[in-house]
C-alpha cells in the first residue's frame, strides 16, 4: 500500500506538476501564496475538468451551479441574520443556543457543512473562538467558504497554544480575567459564535443589527461593529 501511495505521488502528482510548484516551500506561509501560486494551476484544473466531462464523470453546468452557491447563496450575511435575530428575539436566542440546527433551519441556512451546528455565546466572562487544527472545518451555510487565514498553517497551529497572541494579530485584546474558550472542530460539529450585542444598538431593527455583524465576530476573531462604525475594507 505504501508502495502504491509513493508510486502515485511520484508518477501522478509529480507528473501533473503538483510537487513541482516553483518556490513551493514558501507557500507554507499562506500569506505568500499569491506569489507562489503558479497560474498554471488554473490550466491544470481546467484540464482535469475537461477530462472528467469527457469521461462522463462531471457535468460543467453542475459545477457552475455549485460555484454559484459558493459565491452567491452562502456567506457571512446569512450568519449575520441569525445573530441579529438572536439579539432581538430572546425566545429565538434560547432555541439557537439549545438546538442550533432547528433554529438556523428556520431561516433556511441549511446544507453541506452545516448539518450539525452548535452556537456558542460570548458573555462578559467568556470569549469563544473557533479553529480546525486538523483541516479547515467551517460552517458553510451560515459563513460561506472560509477565509484564507482560517485555512492557513499559522492560524491552525497557534489558535490552540497561543490564542491571545493570535487575537492580537486581529487587533483584539482579551482581558486576562475573561476566559478564552477555543473550540477545535475535530468532529463533524460546526461552530458559530454569537457575539455580544454592541452597546448603543438598542433601537436598531434586525436589518440594521445584521449590518453590524462581521464575519470574524462569528468566528471569534473579531467584534461586531458599533452603531455608526463602518467596516474596514
Amino acid at each position, binding site marked *: 500500500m505504501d508502495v502504491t501511495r509513493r508510486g502515485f505521488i511520484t508518477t501522478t502528482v509529480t507528473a*501533473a506538476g503538483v510537487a513541482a510548484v516553483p518556490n*513551493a516551500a514558501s507557500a507554507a506561509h499562506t500569506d505568500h501564496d499569491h506569489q507562489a501560486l503558479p497560474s498554471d494551476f488554473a490550466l491544470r484544473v481546467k484540464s482535469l475538468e475537461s477530462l472528467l466531462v469527457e469521461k462522463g464523470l462531471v457535468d460543467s453546468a453542475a459545477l457552475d451551479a455549485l460555484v454559484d452557491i459558493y459565491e452567491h447563496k452562502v456567506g457571512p450575511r446569512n450568519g449575520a441574520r441569525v445573530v441579529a435575530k438572536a439579539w432581538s428575539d430572546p425566545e429565538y436566542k434560547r432555541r439557537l443556543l439549545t438546538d442550533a440546527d432547528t433554529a438556523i433551519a428556520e431561516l433556511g441556512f441549511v446544507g453541506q457543512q452545516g448539518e450539525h451546528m452548535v452556537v456558542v455565546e460570548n458573555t462578559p466572562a467568556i470569549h469563544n473562538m473557533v479553529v480546525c487544527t*486538523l483541516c479547515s472545518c467551517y460552517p458553510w451555510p451560515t459563513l460561506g467558504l472560509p477565509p484564507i487565514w482560517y485555512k492557513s498553517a499559522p492560524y491552525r497551529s497557534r489558535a490552540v497554544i497561543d490564542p491571545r497572541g493570535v487575537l492580537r494579530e486581529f487587533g483584539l485584546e482579551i482581558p486576562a480575567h475573561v476566559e478564552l474558550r477555543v473550540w477545535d472542530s475535530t468532529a463533524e460539529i460546526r461552530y458559530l459564535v454569537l457575539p455580544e450585542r454592541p452597546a448603543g444598538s438598542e433601537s436598531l431593527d434586525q436589518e440594521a443589527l445584521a449590518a453590524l455583524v462581521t464575519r470574524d465576530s462569528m468566528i471569534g476573531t473579531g467584534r461586531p461593529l458599533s452603531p455608526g462604525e463602518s467596516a474596514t475594507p
Partner: protein
Amino acid sequence: MNGPHDMGGMQTFGPVRPAENAAVSHSAWEERIMAIWAAMGSWRKWNIDSGRQARESLPPAEYLSLSYSQLRYAQALKLLVEGGLVTPAEIERGKATKASPKLTPALSADKVAAYWRNGSPKTRDVAVEAKFRVGQQVRARNVHPVTHTRLPRYARGRVGVIERDRGVFVFPDTNAQYLGEKPQHVYSVRFLARELWGDQANALDTVMIDMWHDYLESA
C-alpha cells in the same frame, strides 16, 4: 497518523496576517476545484474520512508546500486514481484513453440544489450507550494510529472533563479504512489550557475538543 496536518501547537509558521488573507480565495480555479471535489463525491468512491486520509498521507514537505486549494487538487487526483475513475496517463494528457468506459449519469445541474440542501449528515440514528456523562473526568488516550484519526496529538494523554454529549456519529478511524461506520457518541471535552500547554497559558483559558468515545478513557 502523526502527519503534517495535525498542526495544533506548532509555533513556527509565522503571523496570521488576517487583513492580507481575508478573502476566501485568490483566484477562480480554487472554487472550481472545490466544485469538482463536491460533484465527484456523488460517485461515492470515497467518503469524507478516506478523503481526508488521502490528503494527510502526503509526505510532510509536500503537504506543507501546498495551499489549501492545491491540496484539494492533489487529494482529488489521488482519489480519482485510487478509485479507478481516471488513470495517471489520462490526467497527464487531459484526455480520456480511447477504450475507457464513459460513466453516466454525473450529478446534473438540476440536482445540485437538493444535493446541497440535504447535506451529508454524519449522525446515525442507532441506540448506542453513552459510556461517559457530563461532568465526568476523562483522559484522551495516548494512542498513535498509523491511519486516519481525528484525535489531535496535542490532546493525547491529557485530562479533561465531559462538557456535552453531542450524540452518535460515524467513527472516522474505521470509516476512513472502509471498515464500517462504528457509530458512537461524540463528546465536547473541556481541557484547561494549562493542562495542554503548562503555565505559559492563561489560568482561565480552555480548549474544547470534540472526541469520539473510542478516544477516551476514565481518569
